């Protein structure tokens, strides 16, 4: 376990002495390799262009990002941006919910009571041993269809005052699609939560038992020992693994397009069919997912560095 965690300041290893002379980070050999790779990529691209008779035409795709309203002449977001917003909402709430599930279940997984351990273990095993696509279908058609209709979210929403509805629309998307959105959100969080559970469990188990024992011997209660000694260490350990899981969650959110949740991938497929521009839409969608995940991974890496310094 420990080997995987990058060196952090404050660890027991003594800091390395500074190298006497700074060498140039770039040698001739590096430049040679870089040129070779670039040449290979270019050759590959040329070959693909030959085998692939496709006329790129981006002009019909742009209007599906931003449209001009014919009545007011103002710009308004079109399908792809609407889908992107849904994906972002799914990602944000999905992370929060998956983390909540993971913390609870991870705690249960290490609990001295057998029943709690069993519940958590069954959950993790069920979800982890089913392929994601199958899980999405089974969850939506067998499990969620049992309880979602009785919640009648859209009806409850329409009874709220207008100001509350506006706030909820920003947080969860248009009222007409609220059932659709929650279905996707619950599905994604339950799925991702199982992986977060395992990460949290690993973190808790990585804290040496001596830590909790020491806390107890200092007179801390069981709860205080968990709160001040075990959990902070566990969470700090799993931060890198958690950020990986969150990035995975964003990419997994494209899976719920299979059950018609109207996020970016679903909208992209609609646009593909309507414009017949398959590859343009694919490339655009991939670029958007890349941007979201890249920004997230960079900000999480920043958080990790700051945490490492804070120790």
């Amino acid at each position: 376990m420990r080997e995987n965690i990058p060196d952090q300041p404050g660890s027991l290893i003594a800091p390395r002495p500074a190298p006497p002379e700074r060498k140039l980070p770039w040698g001739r050999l590096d430049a040679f390799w870089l040129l070779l790779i670039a040449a290979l990529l270019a050759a590959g691209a040329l070959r693909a262009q030959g085998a692939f008779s496709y006329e790129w035409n981006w002009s019909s795709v742009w209007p599906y990002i931003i449209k001009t309203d014919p009545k007011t002449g103002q710009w308004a977001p079109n399908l792809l941006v609407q889908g992107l917003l849904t994906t972002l909402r799914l990602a944000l709430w999905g992370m929060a919910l998956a983390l909540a599930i993971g913390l609870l279940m991870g705690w249960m997984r290490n609990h001295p009571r057998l029943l709690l351990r069993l519940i958590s273990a069954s959950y993790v095993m069920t979800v982890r041993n089913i392929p994601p696509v199958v899980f999405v279908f089974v969850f939506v058609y067998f499990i969620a269809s049992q309880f979602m209709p009785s919640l009648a979210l859209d009806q409850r929403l329409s009874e709220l005052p207008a100001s509350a509805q506006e706030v909820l629309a920003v947080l969860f998307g248009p009222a007409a699609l609220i059932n659709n959105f929650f279905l996707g959100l619950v599905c994604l969080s339950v799925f991702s939560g199982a992986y977060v559970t395992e990460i949290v469990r690993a973190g808790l188990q990585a804290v040496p038992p001596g830590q909790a024992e020491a806390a107890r011997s200092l007179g801390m209660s069981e709860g205080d020992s968990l709160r001040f000694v075990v959990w902070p260490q566990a969470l700090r350990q799993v931060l890198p693994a958690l950020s990986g899981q969150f990035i995975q969650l964003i990419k997994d959110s494209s899976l719920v397009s299979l059950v018609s949740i109207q996020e970016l991938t679903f909208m992209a497929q609609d646009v593909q069919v309507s414009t017949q521009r398959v590859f343009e839409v694919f490339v655009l969608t991939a670029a958007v997912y890349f941007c979201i995940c890249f920004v997230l991974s960079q900000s999480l890496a920043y958080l990790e560095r700051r945490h490492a310094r804070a120790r």
Partner: protein
Amino acid sequence: MSIRRFLSVCALTLLGALSALSPAQAQQDPLLETIKKRGKLQVGFSSFVPWAMRDKQGQWVGFEIDVSTKLAQDLGVQLELIPTAWDAIIPSLIAGKFDLIIGGMTITPARQEQIDFTSAYSTSGQGIAASRQLASQLKWPEGYNSPNVTFTCRRGVAGCRTVEEKWPKATLRQFDDDAMAFQEVINGNAHAVISSEPKPSFFTLANPGKLFKPAAENVVNTYEGFGLRKGNPASLANFNGWITKNQAWLKQRHEYWFRTQDWAAQVPKL
């Protein structure tokens, strides 16, 4: 982990799975009453040119949209369009995500085992577009019945079955949507694509150097009906009555979307 603990974990997992598989409670009330009470007709469909597609403003247009709109008007309720992935459209209907499929769904015996169909509200056909590069030498139709010939289709559409029945020796490759199935033939990776008309004709017109039509007439004629959950005989009769009453109107709308391209300005150029 002890054997006892392992077994109890297995039992709990199985229990969870079983309880999840128990069927949803069957709803007894007739469909039409539910729709009227809700004040909204929920229609499931999937995007498919020219049945249902997004115009430049992101709004739905197409033959199905016209039909659904008029049906909702005549019932005196609002229309809620629920775009659904084609693969899962029948499970979604059965799970109660919407009242009706109005999605250009061909009436087939296999589908009739799962859901009920109204009488046909539209007749169309399946057509073939073939690759000039690969298939121009092939004799129609018997030359296509060879293991060296590859057909493409959109997964789950009736055309895939047609290929299996008419050209059993040919290879069939299935794609998630039509655009990819056509692109594979345009790229010269497959010999021919089957799809519901007028799409093969439109694509051949748009790519004259790459595609041709081996046969002018339809390969198979198909009949499309509304799909309903089983066990709603009264509603089924009611919808059948609506279709009979509106034959002329349906025909006229069908002509507009399938025989003309007057609507082409609304959508991006194909």
